[in-house]
């Protein structure tokens, strides 16, 4: 049975090297605000989720690059060509210290595009906070 260990080891290395690392939209430098009435996010939702990270300095990062109002408009327009507005959700992962002025124009863009499903990512209130 000893040679089988090498086979298993080779298989593990193979799948580890060839597996696709899923790019997450989560920017860990964002300190989310806390809220009591936050809802657990539905992982089985059929909606296309567009996640925008708003950093403490007010800059907006989406897909790993900084964007502005025009870019978000283009992104939403591209998504609306593929699916109706009811199937698109925009989530803002905004730092608690970020100014509201950084988010306000983005909310306006969403409203003008007819994307009403907007949410703010929050952290649940724990006893340690």
């Amino acid at each position: 049975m000893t040679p089988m260990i090498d086979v298993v080891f080779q298989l593990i290395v193979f799948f580890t090297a060839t597996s696709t690392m899923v790019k997450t939209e989560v920017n860990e430098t964002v300190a989310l605000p806390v809220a009591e009435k936050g809802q657990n996010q539905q992982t089985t939702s059929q909606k296309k989720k567009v996640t925008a990270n708003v950093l403490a300095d007010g800059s907006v990062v989406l897909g790993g690059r900084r964007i502005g109002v025009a870019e978000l408009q283009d992104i939403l327009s591209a998504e609306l060509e593929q699916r109706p507005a009811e199937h698109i959700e925009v989530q803002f992962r905004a730092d608690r210290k970020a100014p509201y002025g950084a988010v306000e124009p983005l909310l306006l863009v969403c409203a003008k595009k007819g994307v009403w499903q907007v949410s703010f990512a929050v952290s649940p209130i724990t006893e340690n906070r």
Partner: protein
Amino acid sequence: MKSPNHYSSEPGNVSSSMTPMIDVVFQLLIFFLCTASFKLTEQALPTTLPPLGAAAYKPPPEIEELELIRIGLTQSGDELHIDMNGNACAGIDDLAGRLRQLMALANLPAVLDVSTEVEIGHMVAVYDMCLAVGLKDIHFAAPDR
């Protein structure tokens, strides 16, 4: 000298060492440890934007001021200033108490008029409080510019 017989002459006496399987388990453990990712639990605070066709929530002129709750948020330094329908509030708790009094009379829609300098954390705290007191129809005011 007779060479040792590798095969046992007694039927049913087949044994195999389980020690190599421990290495397999160890390799699998390393694999899953390397590929595991630990994420902080996140929740979402849903908001409702204005209806289709409207760039901003502007109530019709015929709606009296008492039928709409306008919550204004401004910030100077680290201090948050809250006013409800033009009346200054001492804080979020004071606003919550006033909202509960109003909600006991009628379920009114609310508009959050947030200044650009207000921190998102303060805005979320006020929005969260509005949800906690039972407000269901909460909108964000659009800028006049």
